């Protein structure tokens, strides 16, 4: 571990030598100005350290990384999207450190936020790429209408396609992050029959792309990915779908607050029933938690306000590739489906931990059987309710 510690320290030292993008303000200053004291900041850093699966002693390094995040220029492109991913970041309930850090990194280009429009915006993108060649981080939101279909998205006075812009921006990026399921895997517009030929970012560039899927992903996963890059300067451990393992290494099911009910065979049979009022497991009303790799059960959304399973609806598998086609119908259990299952669609089978297709299929069948058997074991008669 000390070897890693030294390696990360060295990386941060080197980063520190880079020129700041704004000499007048540093992230620590900003935090103080916002009334966030050092103690709160260190608390955040240790939470982030745990999230990145690093030992607690690394907290100071994470804090340092956060302070250095304004050394990295970021270009954010919008493709075929709904702005939900930008929104996810920007709508935390109080100016949390996550969102503040996002506010103070050097966002060189972001169509929803920037002041410039038209010709000048077009110029900004070209200038940012030129000026920070090989140094900027590229974040892309949205699927990309591709090839023959590229004209479904044009941007700028010259009518360039989104694909042209994205390709060009990938060329000289230091690191590329696909933010959200659309840029990771094509997303909703790429669902069957994919009328606009939309694809994920990794399909239009040869450069390595880190996928941060979710519809939208939580702000923690986006910021964490950025922190990881600052710390290591290299790509994180990824699963078969190029998702960082530290965030997408476990199933929703593994840490679900309703897991106890699953194990006890207590299921919501229909929305609004007695089980629903008691917070029983949602597997039988279609929860895709067992097949979905993400950390929502731990991190929740809107600053821990809630998450879909807490709100009584099953997970819809939104961070899995092609989930629109493989996870639907969303309100029916997978094992009841005769077509388009997660296995047929290659859903959660080929993931990080290399569970063989057979094994997960067995697991799925097992889960379904468990649901049925458990029900026999615990007959719930109406008068008991």
């Amino acid at each position, binding site marked *: 571990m000390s070897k890693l510690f030294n390696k990360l320290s060295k990386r941060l030292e080197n980063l520190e030598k880079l020129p*700041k*993008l*704004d000499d*007048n303000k540093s992230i620590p200053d900003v935090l103080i100005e916002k009334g966030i004291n050092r103690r709160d900041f260190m608390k955040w850093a240790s939470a982030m350290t745990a999230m990145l699966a690093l030992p607690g002693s690394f907290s100071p390094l994470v804090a340092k990384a956060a302070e250095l995040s304004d050394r990295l220029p970021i270009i954010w492109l919008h493709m*075929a999207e*709904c*702005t*939900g991913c930008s*929104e*996810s970041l*920007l*709508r*935390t309930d*109080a*100016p949390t450190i996550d969102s503040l850090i*996002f*506010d*103070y990194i*050097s966002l060189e280009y972001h*169509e*929803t*936020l*920037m*002041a*410039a*429009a*038209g010709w*000048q915006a077009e110029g*900004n993108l070209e200038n940012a790429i030129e000026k920070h060649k090989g140094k900027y981080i590229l974040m892309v939101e949205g699927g990309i209408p591709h090839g023959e279909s590229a*004209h479904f998205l044009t941007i700028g*006075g*010259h*009518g360039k396609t*989104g694909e042209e812009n994205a390709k060009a921006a990938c060329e000289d990026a230091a690191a590329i992050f696909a933010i959200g399921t659309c840029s990771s895997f094509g997303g*909703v*517009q790429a*669902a*069957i*029959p994919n*009328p*606009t030929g939309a694809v994920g970012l990794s399909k239009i560039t040869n450069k390595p792309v880190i996928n941060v899927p979710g*519809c*939208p992903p939580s702000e923690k996963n986006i910021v964490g990915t950025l922190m990881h890059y600052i710390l290591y300067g290299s790509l994180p451990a990824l699963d078969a779908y190029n998702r960082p393992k530290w965030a997408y290494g476990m199933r929703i099911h593994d840490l679900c607050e309703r897991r106890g009910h699953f194990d006890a065979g207590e299921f919501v049979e229909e929305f*609004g029933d007695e089980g*629903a009022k008691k*917070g029983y497991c949602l597997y039988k009303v279609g929860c895709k938690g067992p097949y979905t790799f993400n950390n929502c059960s731990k991190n929740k*959304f*809107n600053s821990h*306000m*809630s*998450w*879909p399973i*807490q*709100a*009584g*609806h099953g997970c819809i598998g939104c961070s899995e590739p092609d989930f629109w086609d493989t996870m*639907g119908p*969303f*309100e*029916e259990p997978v094992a009841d489906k005769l077509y388009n299952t997660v296995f047929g669609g290659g859903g959660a089978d080929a993931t990080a931990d290399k569970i063989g297709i057979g094994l997960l299929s067995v697991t799925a069948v097992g889960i379904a059987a468990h649901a049925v058997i458990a029900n026999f074991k615990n007959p719930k008669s109406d008068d008991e309710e």
Partner: protein
Amino acid sequence: MANKRIIVDPITRIEGHLRIEVEIDENNVIKNAFASSTLWRGLETIVKNRDPRDAGFLMQRICGVCTFSHYRAGIEAVEDALNITPPLNAKLTRSLMNQALFMHDHLVHFYHLHGLDWVDITSALKADPAKASKEAFKYTKYPIATGENDLVKVKDRVKEFAARGELGPFANAYWGHETFRLTPEQNLIALSHYLKALEVQRTAAQLMAMFGGKQPHPQSLTVGGVTCVMDLLDPSRMAEYLTKYKEVSNFIEHAYCADILMAGQAYAKEPSVTAKAGTMNFMSHKEMQLNRTEFLFDTGIILNGDLSKVHPINEDLITEEATHSWYKDDEPLHPYDGKTNPNYTGMSEAMTIGAQGKEVHSKVIDEKGKYSWIKSPRYDGKAMEVGPLASVLVSYASGNKKIVKIVDEFLEQTGLPTEALFTTLGRTAARALQVKAIIENGLETFDTLIENLKVDQETYTTYKIDKDKEYKGRFIGDVPRGMLSHWIRIKNGVVENYQAVVPSTWNAGPEDSTGLKGPYESNLIGLKVKDITQPLEIIRVIHSFDPCIACAVHVMDTKGNELGSYKVDPTYGTSC
């Protein structure tokens, strides 16, 4: 001298991809205008052949901001088709989530997107904080964030930016524009509220997440009801909602509404915001369930600005056509029969006015042919404006007491005539009046829900989808940007056809086959731009429709460009 063509693409700081092209004569008067949407995603095609219960989830992804609107519309269109009536608790919960959406959305739109079209930041630097603090009492009995020391602090903060030659979040080249009308003190008040609103809006977003699981893209609605029964039955959760609701509504009343009153008085005589609207027909649909039977806003149509009569809506007269849209089927069709088959014809090469005010080589839309991914919806062949202004006008003309009171109060306090409602200023004010009506009446929904939960805990209605039957249904309602309708046909147990007619379509659609323009385009024509390098007037008009779905973010990137308002046009001022 021939008219000059100016392209603005991308129009930044909006949700989605929008291109505006205008022609200006030698007096800088806009002679023609074209709005072109440059992105198509095809969700209406994708939803076909899917399980109808999934339609709402898919349609939700139209937009990550009014995310709840399309989710609810998709769910309720299916409920209408299957003839399902959700339990009262579900209806009221959906209404609360909808109120949360309006509160968040309108607040953010005014301060972080539209506000800086009205407020001159540099003028605020000349303000006397003590005087400004007193001024704030003219518009409300309980001002917020305008104590003298608050204002001193705000002023110092902005001064610091200005001294560095950077206006941080206020980097915007139009400061000092002669159409700004607020005094330095008034500008300082608004500026302080701008900063405070950044915090308040985050709480507003939580109001929805509380029952929705997350925001954007909540996940607690299902065909037949809502799933958040545990939250509803948890008294501490309900109390938390109430606390946050009061916090947000307090700010809306004593900051947002007060600032609108201030702007209304100050801008009463500014020609660029008081010119008569280009489209004088308004349509809206009843919305916002308050109790078992009543809704806050009314249904109807106002024709030619005549408030003496409200016409009923005949849904059979709604059509969409695609003469100037990139689709194959030009003829006007009812949404049940609507077709969405893309037919992209591209743009042509031309010379237009570039960033330096000189002619540059560029692409231009084909105004004689097809030029937008948006269709042209019409009602009985007429263009209609939808949105908060339409909702307020229709309710007002219907004699809805709750709305009449609010509108009359506003007119009286600003000294504006009723005609002033049919303007850019009126459109901006109406958004605040609409949300004021919501905070004055929204707790009735909450109280009804609590009372009902004591005796009835039903949140879901069971139903069956018969694979051998055919169904058709629709949702119509009013969402933050206006009237929204979703239309669905179900056959063999799957979605056979789906059309969404969204507010931006009504407002931003291109010309139709008769040359009739939609509201965006018609409201730009005739507008005089005082200084072609600072087309603030255009921005005010476009922004007043809320085309951009706001990111309420406090971004001060280290370059200092940010939440100013965006620049339209050729010589757009500051470089970032």
